[in-house]
């Protein structure tokens, strides 16, 4: 069995830099171009609240395709087999289930600004503080995992030092988000998602042409039969955990809420459902590549780099260029969304509600830009020391967001949801989810958090019901000038 290392297929650093500069300039140029459409705060933060089905479904899908999808799905397949790929695919359920919620959000909050507004108006200030703590932690963790992935990618594929690659990717995303707001984010997401999908199909077809299904299957059966087992307990728990983690991630985060506010009312539900449907096959298409590693005789030193390793090995320089472009697009499509949505959340919930309740739209737009830069800088500082592997960073937030699923869903649909029990559900779900995460395993954290949170939210609805006036959610927007 021949043993190949990553260095056999890496790009020359100058190719990496050229790709980085070309893609970076393209996104910044498009950011400036589309940003000119944003004439006011509504335009900058919500792309005029009039986004159509094509761009809506593409941005939902592209945002959900992160570097973790293209790099962690192969790692899941390598470690948990077929169940691992299926487990990752269940994250699309978050988008499916958010579809009816997004429609409800659009109906209840036609001029809404952030997910934090909903929690504050629905459950009060204490719940709002708990929510902001969790969702900001999650958003920053997500950003860090992608900033780190970007640095690692450039380092492994093109030999660019980690610090330079990570800085470059963050800088490009900060720049075009800053210039173009949500117009730039959604417009670039469409192009990025098309590139990712076409790239994955090309890579998948090349893998299948080089190594037949039968060969991959029989090699796995001989070398790692556990990966083909129907009853693989850890993988089955991971499936449910991942599904709940995905649902929690989508329900809690302002990335999705800001899109619910931005999409046209008539298409908002369909856009999320289609986004989920487009996303569903991606972890399998990206993940199965890892299962070919054994048949190709590759020595996988770092499991989170198995996808790029296989592709680079099969396609040489062309493959490395393709991997570079796919992962760069995956990173940019999520980093831009997170920067925009998190800065919206901080602008609305901390700057406006906390310090400047009478701020004009012009002032808020200026503050929003400053916050985009501040979040980018914070993420850069945390990414710099390169701590932890990708899975650890990502899944640490699982129990926290899992505890928010029921409070958010129940708050949108059940008039009797009790705010005090919702706070108990968030806190107890997070704490017990983290206990499970550390004592049982990462694959159980979101599961435990969601279960605990569901029981407490349900007790609040059925044993201690408290009526709510839905009209409270329809808050007036900030003044024009």
């Amino acid at each position, binding site marked *: 069995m021949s043993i190949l290392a990553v260095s056999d297929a890496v790009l020359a650093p100058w190719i990496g830099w050229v790709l980085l500069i070309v893609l970076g300039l393209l996104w910044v140029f498009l950011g400036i171009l589309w940003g000119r*459409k944003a004439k006011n705060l509504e335009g900058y933060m919500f*792309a*005029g609240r*009039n*986004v*159509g*089905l*094509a*761009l809506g*479904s*593409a941005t939902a*899908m592209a945002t959900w395709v992160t570097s973790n999808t293209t790099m962690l799905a192969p790692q899941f397949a390598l470690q948990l087999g*077929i169940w691992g*790929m299926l487990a990752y695919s269940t994250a699309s359920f978050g988008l499916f289930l958010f579809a009816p919620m997004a429609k409800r959000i659009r109906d209840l909050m036609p001029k809404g600004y952030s997910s934090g507004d909903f929690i504050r108006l629905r459950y009060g200030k204490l719940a709002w503080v708990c929510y902001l703590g969790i969702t900001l932690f999650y958003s920053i963790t997500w950003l860090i995992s992608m900033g780190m992935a970007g640095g690692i990618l450039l380092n492994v594929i093109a030999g660019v030092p980690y610090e330079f690659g990570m800085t470059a990717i963050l800088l490009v995303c900060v720049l075009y988000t800053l210039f173009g707001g949500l*117009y730039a984010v959604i417009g670039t997401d*469409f192009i990025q*998602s*098309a590139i990712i*999908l*076409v790239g*994955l*199909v090309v890579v*998948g*077809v090349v893998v*299948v042409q080089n190594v037949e*299904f*039968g060969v*991959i*299957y*029989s090699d796995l*059966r001989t070398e790692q*039969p556990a990966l*083909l*087992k*129907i009853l693989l307990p850890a993988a089955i728990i991971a499936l449910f955990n991942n599904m709940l983690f995905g649902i929690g991630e989508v329900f809690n985060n302002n990335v999705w809420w800001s899109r619910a506010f931005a999409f*046209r009312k008539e298409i908002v539900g369909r856009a999320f459902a*289609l986004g989920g*449907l*487009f996303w*569903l*096959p*991606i972890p*399998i*298409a990206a993940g*199965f590549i890892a299962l070919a590693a054994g048949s190709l005789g590759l020595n996988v030193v770092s499991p989170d780099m198995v996808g790029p390793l296989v592709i680079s090995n099969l396609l040489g320089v062309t493959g490395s260029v393709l991997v570079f472009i796919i992962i760069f697009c995956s990173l940019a499509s999520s980093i831009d969304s997170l920067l925009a949505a998190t800065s919206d959340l901080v602008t609305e919930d901390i700057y406006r509600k906390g310090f400047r309740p009478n701020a004009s739209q012009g002032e808020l737009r200026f503050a929003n830009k400053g916050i985009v830069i501040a979040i980018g800088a914070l993420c850069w500082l945390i990414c710099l020391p390169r701590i932890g592997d990708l899975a650890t960073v990502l899944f640490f937030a699982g129990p926290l967001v899992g505890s928010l699923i029921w409070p958010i869903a129940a708050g949108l649909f059940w008039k009797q949801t009790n705010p005090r029990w919702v706070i108990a559900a968030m806190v107890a779900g997070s704490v017990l989810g983290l206990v499970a995460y550390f004592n049982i395993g990462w694959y159980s954290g979101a599961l435990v958090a969601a279960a605990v949170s569901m029981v407490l939210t349900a007790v609040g609805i059925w044993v201690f019901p408290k009526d709510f006036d839905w009209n409270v959610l329809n808050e007036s927007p900030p003044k024009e000038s």
Partner: protein
Amino acid sequence: MFSPAFFAILIAAALIGTGLAVTIMILMLRRDRKNKTLW
């Protein structure tokens, strides 16, 4: 143990599904542009 047929069908379906997704996206974009409902 998952069967070889299941394995092959799963992968093929994922690749076809991914290809279909990008095709539908582009067709929807053309329709929205034509109907002026892009933004």
